[in-house]
C-alpha cells in the first residue's frame, strides 16, 4: 500500500492536524521512524484511510532499523504489532528479511523466490527490491523443486553470481555474455547494471561506470556498493563543508585497495584529523591497521609518510604537541615497528634542524642513518649525503638572537667538521661536503687546513667550477694572483656565461697590475690592464667591470706609480665616461684611499668631493652613490668608511627636498643600510621620501610597508601591528604587488615573536622615570671603570661586547650581572620544541692539529 500523497489535505482537517501530518512526512523522509510513528498514531483515529499507511510505513522502517542494529527481539515485537494493522502482503518481505538475519540462506532462498514470483502478492517496489537483493546475497543455487516461475528467477540470480565470478577472474567477455540472461525488466536488472559499471571501472572507462552507477535504485545494495567504486573513480569527492564520505564507501574502497581493515580506520582517522585531533588520527590508523605505518611504495606507504610530514603545515602549538607525541615514543623506543621508529627519527631531526639542541639533532639523525642502513642495506653515498647535511646544520649559526642581533658563531663547529669529514670519507666525490668544510675552515680562520683541503679538491675535482672559483678566491686573498688567474681561466672554459668569473678576472688583473706598478714593472702592469679590455662593459653602475671604473683605476695607478701625464689622460676619460661628476669624484676618492692608505677619510679628491656632494643632490644620484659605497664596504680592502657613510646620509637628507620619482625613492629605501654609524636621522630622511609618496597615494602598499619598517615598533601592541600589516597585505594583493605581499607575509609570521619593548609603554601623562620600579639604572655601578661619555666610546663598548658574544664569552643572561638593566633588549628565547632529557655531556672539542678523516 502506498501512503496517499500529501497533495492538499482535506479542508475539514484542523491546522494542528495538518501540521502534524507535515511533521510526520518530514520524519519519514528523514528516516526518523519512531518520531514519525509517535506523530502519526493519534492521527489514525481521525482518518484511518489517510494516516494508517503512514503508520505502517513508519513501523516498517522501525523494524528494519532495529534489525540493522541487531535488536531482533525489539524488531519482532514491532512486527507483531504491524501484523495487527497491516496487510499480509506488506509484511511478507520484512518477515523474510527478519528470517534472513539468523536463518539458513539455503532455506530462505526459495521463500524469497516464491515471494517474488507470486503475482498475487502485490509487493511495493521497494519491498521487491529488497527481496531481490536478499536473493542475490543468499548465494544459493537453483532449488531442485522450483516451479517454472521460481526457476526462471533462480536462473537470473545464478547469472548474477556467474558474472560476479567472471569479473573476479577478469573474464570480461564471459561476464558480459552471462549478464545477457537477465532481461531488462527483471527484478534483478539493477544488479546487471551494477556489474556492468564494475567492469567499466576496472577497464578504466570512468564515464561508462558513472552512467551505470547513476541509474541504480537509491536504496539497493548495488547502489550502496557502487559508492566505493565512485569514490575511487573520483566521482564522490569529499567537499570541504559538505557531508563526510560515507563509511561504507571507505570500507569498500579499502577492500578494493587491498586492505579490508583500512576503510573504517580511515573513516575515523579522517574525522579526527578534520577537527584537529592529529595525534589521535594517527593512532586510529596505527591501532586499526596492522601494517601501518609502512614504507611500501603504495598508498599505505604514502599515508604513513603523510603523518610524518604533516607537522610542517600545522600551527605552532599543534605542531609542538604533535612532535612531542612522537618524541616521547622515540625516546622510550616504544615504536610499533621499525618503520615508525625510522620515520619518527627523521621527523624529529628535520623538524629540529634549524633551532633544536645540536646534540639531540646529531643523535636523532645518526640513529636514523644507522637504522636506514639496517632496513635498506648500507649505502655509503646515501650516508655521505646524510652526514653532509648534518654537518651543514651543525655549522649554522644558533637560532637564538644575540644581544646584538643574529649570531655569527656556529652551533657546534667541532661536530660539524667531524660530520663533514665522515661524509667525505664515505664518498670522496661528495663535492658539497667538501665545499662546506672549506667554508667552515674559513669561518674559523683555520687557513692552513682550508688551503690543504682546497689543494686536494683541485686535484679531485679539476672540472668543477665551484672548486676552481673557491681556489681562485683564496689565491687572490693570499695575493697569489698568477695562480688565481689560472684557476679563473679554467673556470671560464667551463662556463663562459657566469658573470662572476669575468668580475674576478678583472679584479685579479687589476691587483696584479698594481703589484707590477709597485715593483716598477710598468710595461707588464699596463699589459695586464690592457688584457682586461675584453671583459669591460659600458654600464654606469658596474663597479667591477665598468669602463670608466677601469680608466679610473689605471689613472690612479699611473699617477701613484707610473707616468703622471698618462694617468691624467686616463682620469680625464674616466671622468667623461662617468654617469655624473659626484660619482667620479666619490669613486676616485675611495679608490685613492685603497691605493694610498693614510688617514681615514682623506684623499686629494676630498675637497672636490665635498663640493660635488652639495651640487644638485637627487634621489637617483643618491642611489648610485650608495651603491658605490656598498661596493667598497664589501671590497676585500676593508676601508674605514664611517665618514663617507655620514656624508652620504647628509646627501640623502638634502635629496629628499628635491623632486624624485616613486621608483627612485623605492630603490633608495631598499638599498641595504650597513649601520656603520647609527643615526636615527637616516631613517628620518628616508621617511621624508615615504611621506611624500604617500601624500600622492596614501594606500601605496610598498611605501606603507616602508613606513612601518623604518619606524621603530616600540609601544605598538602585536594586535595593532598585525592589523596594520594585514591592511597592507590586502592592498598589495589587490594591486598584485607580489614582492610586497611576500615581505608582509614574512613580517606577519614574526609578529607573534616580537621582543617586548625595552621600555614599558608610556601614556601621555607619564613621566619616564616614574615607570621604573626601582628608579633609573645606576650607571656608575654598571660601568665601574667609567661610564661611556661619547658616541665613539659607546660604539667601542658595543664592538667589544659583540666580539665577546661571537667568542661565546658572554654569560647566558647577558653582559650584565643579575640580568642587567631593563632598558637593554633581551635576546628572544625560542619556544621549547619538545620535552628533552638532559643532553649528554658534549664531546671534547677536536684537536685542530689532528686530521682524522674516519
Amino acid at each position, binding site marked *: 500500500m502506498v501512503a496517499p500523497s500529501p497533495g492538499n489535505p482535506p479542508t475539514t482537517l484542523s491546522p494542528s492536524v495538518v501540521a502534524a501530518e507535515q511533521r510526520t512526512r518530514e520524519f519519514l523522509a528523514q528516516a526518523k521512524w519512531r518520531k514519525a510513528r509517535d506523530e502519526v498514531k493519534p492521527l489514525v483515529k481521525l482518518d484511518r484511510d489517510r494516516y494508517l499507511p503512514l503508520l505502517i510505513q513508519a513501523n516498517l522502517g522501525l523494524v528494519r532499523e532495529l534489525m540493522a542494529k541487531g535488536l531482533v527481539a525489539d524488531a519482532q515485537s514491532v512486527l507483531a504489532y504491524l501484523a495487527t494493522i497491516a496487510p499480509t502482503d506488506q509484511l511478507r518481505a520484512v518477515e523474510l528479511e527478519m528470517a534472513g538475519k539468523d536463518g539458513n540462506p539455503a532455506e530462505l532462498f526459495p521463500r524469497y523466490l516464491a515471494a517474488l514470483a507470486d503475482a498475487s502478492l502485490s509487493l511495493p517496489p521497494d519491498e521487491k527490491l529488497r527481496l531481490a537483493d536478499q536473493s542475490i546475497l543468499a548465494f544459493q543455487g537453483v532449488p531442485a523443486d522450483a516451479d517454472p516461475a521460481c526457476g526462471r528467477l533462480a536462473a537470473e540470480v545464478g547469472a548474477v553470481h556467474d558474472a560476479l565470478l567472471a569479473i573476479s577472474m577478469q573474464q570480461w567477455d564471459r561476464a558480459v555474455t552471462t549478464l545477457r540472461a537477465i532481461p531488462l525488466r527483471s527484478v534483478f536488472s539493477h544488479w546487471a547494471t551494477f556489474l556492468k559499471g564494475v567492469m567499466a571501472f576496472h577497464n*578504466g572507462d570512468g564515464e561508462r561506470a558513472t552512467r551505470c552507477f547513476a541509474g541504480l535504485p537509491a536504496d539497493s545494495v548495488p547502489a*550502496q556498493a557502487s559508492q566505493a567504486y565512485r569514490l575511487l573513480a573520483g566521482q564522490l569527492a569529499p567537499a570541504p563543508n559538505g557531508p563526510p564520505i560515507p563509511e561504507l564507501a571507505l570500507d*569498500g574502497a579499502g577492500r578494493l585497495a587491498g586492505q579490508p581493515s583500512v576503510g573504517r580506520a580511515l573513516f575515523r582517522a579522517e574525522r579526527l584529523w578534520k577537527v584537529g585531533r592529529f595525534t589521535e588520527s594517527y593512532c586510529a590508523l596505527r591501532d586499526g591497521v596492522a601494517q601501518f605505518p609502512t614504507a611500501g611504495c603504495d598508498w599505505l606507504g604514502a599515508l604513513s609518510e603523510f603523518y610524518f610530514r604533516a607537522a610542517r603545515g600545522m600551527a605552532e602549538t599543534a605542531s609542538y604537541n604533535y612532535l612531542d607525541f612522537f618524541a616521547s615514543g622515540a625516546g622510550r623506543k616504544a615504536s610499533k615497528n621499525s618503520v615508525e621508529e625510522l620515520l619518527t627519527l627523521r621527523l624529529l631531526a628535520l623538524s629540529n634542524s634549524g633551532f633544536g639542541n645540536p646534540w639531540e639533532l646529531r643523535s636523532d639523525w645518526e640513529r636514523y642513518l644507522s637504522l636506514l642502513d639496517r632496513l635498506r642495506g648500507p649505502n655509503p653515498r646515501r650516508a655521505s649525503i646524510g652526514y653532509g647535511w648534518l654537518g651543514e646544520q651543525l655549522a649554522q649559526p644558533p637560532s637564538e638572537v644575540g644581544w646584538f642581533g643574529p649570531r655569527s658563531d656556529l652551533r657546534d663547529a667541532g661536530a660539524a667538521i667531524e660530520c663533514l669529514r665522515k661524509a667525505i670519507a664515505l664518498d670522496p666525490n661528495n663535492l658539497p661536503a667538501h665545499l662546506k668544510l672549506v667554508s667552515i675552515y674559513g669561518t674559523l680562520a683555520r687557513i692552513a687546513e682550508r688551503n690543504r683541503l682546497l689543494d686536494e679538491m683541485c686535484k679531485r675535482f679539476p672540472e668543477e667550477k665551484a672548486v676552481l672559483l673557491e681556489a681562485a678566491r683564496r689565491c687572490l686573498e693570499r695575493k697569489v694572483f698568477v695562480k688565481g688567474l689560472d684557476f679563473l681561466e679554467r673556470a671560464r672554459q667551463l662556463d663562459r656565461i657566469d658573470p662572476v668569473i669575468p668580475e674576478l678576472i678583472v679584479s685579479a688583473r687589476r691587483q696584479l697590475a698594481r703589484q707590477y706598478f709597485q715593483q716598477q714593472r710598468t710595461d707588464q702592469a699596463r699589459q695586464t690592464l690592457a688584457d682586461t679590455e675584453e671583459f669591460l662593459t659600458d654600464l654606469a653602475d658596474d663597479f667591477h667591470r665598468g669602463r670608466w671604473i677601469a680608466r679610473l683605476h689605471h689613472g690612479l695607478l699611473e699617477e701613484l706609480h707610473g707616468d703622471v701625464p698618462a694617468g691624467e689622460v686616463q682620469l680625464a676619460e674616466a671622468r667623461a665616461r662617468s654617469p655624473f661628476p659626484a660619482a667620479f669624484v666619490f669613486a676616485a676618492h675611495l679608490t685613492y684611499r685603497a691605493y694610498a692608505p693614510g688617514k681615514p677619510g682623506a684623499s686629494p679628491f676630498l675637497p672636490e668631493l665635498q663640493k660635488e656632494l652639495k651640487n644638485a643632490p637627487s634621489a637617483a644620484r643618491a642611489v648610485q652613490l650608495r651603491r658605490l659605497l656598498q661596493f667598497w664596504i664589501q671590497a676585500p680592502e676593508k676601508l674605514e668608511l664611517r665618514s663617507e657613510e655620514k656624508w652620504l646620509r647628509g646627501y640623502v637628507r638634502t635629496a629628499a627636498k628635491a623632486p624624485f620619482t616613486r621608483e627612485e625613492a623605492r630603490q633608495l629605501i631598499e638599498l641595504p643600510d650597513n649601520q656603520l654609524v647609527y643615526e636615527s636621522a637616516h631613517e628620518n630622511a628616508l621617511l621624508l621620501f615615504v611621506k611624500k609618496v604617500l601624500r600622492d597615494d596614501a594606500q601605496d602598499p610598498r611605501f606603507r610597508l616602508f613606513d612601518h619598517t623604518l619606524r621603530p615598533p616600540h609601544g605598538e601592541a602585536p594586535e595593532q601591528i598585525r592589523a596594520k600589516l594585514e591592511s597592507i597585505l590586502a592592498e598589495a594583493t589587490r594591486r598584485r604587488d607580489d614582492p610586497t605581499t611576500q615581505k608582509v607575509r614574512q613580517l606577519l609570521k614574526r609578529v607573534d615573536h616580537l621582543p617586548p619593548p625595552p621600555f614599558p609603554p608610556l601614556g601621555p601623562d607619564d613621566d619616564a622615570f616614574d615607570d621604573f620600579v626601582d628608579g633609573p639604572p645606576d650607571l656608575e655601578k654598571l660601568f665601574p671603570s667609567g661610564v661611556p661619555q661619547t658616541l665613539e666610546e659607546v660604539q667601542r663598548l658595543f664592538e667589544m661586547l659583540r666580539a665577546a658574544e661571537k667568542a661565546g664569552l658572554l654569560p647566558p643572561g647577558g653582559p650584565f650581572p643579575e640580568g642587567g638593566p631593563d632598558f637593554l633588549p633581551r635576546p628572544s628565547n625560542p619556544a621549547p620544541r619538545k620535552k628533552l632529557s638532559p643532553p649528554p655531556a658534549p664531546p671534547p672539542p677536536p684537536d685542530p692539529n689532528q686530521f682524522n678523516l674516519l
Partner: protein
Amino acid sequence: MNPYLVLGVPRDADDQAIRRAYLAALKEATPETNPVRFKALAGAYEQIKDEPSRHRHELFDTASLGDSPLDVFLHHVQHGPRPAPLSFEAMKEFLRACSKT
C-alpha cells in the same frame, strides 16, 4: 605525491628502469592530452632520476602529500595502478556488509 608511485616503479629501481617507466608513461600523458598527469610525471622524474636525487628525496623530502588522510588515500589510489577486482569471496563479504546498512 610519492614519485615511485607516480612512475609505477619499485623503490630499488635503477636509473634506466626509472627512465624507461617515465618515457612509457609520457606516451599516454602528453602536455596536450593530460597536462596534469604530465606535470606530475615530470616532477616525479626530476625527484628520482639519478642516485643522488633518490637519496636526497629519501632523506630530506618533506613536501606534504595531501591535506588529510582521506585526501592522500584517494589521491594515491586514484593515480596509482588501477585496483584489481575483488575475489569472489571478498565481493560476497563486501556486498553483505552493504546490505546491513
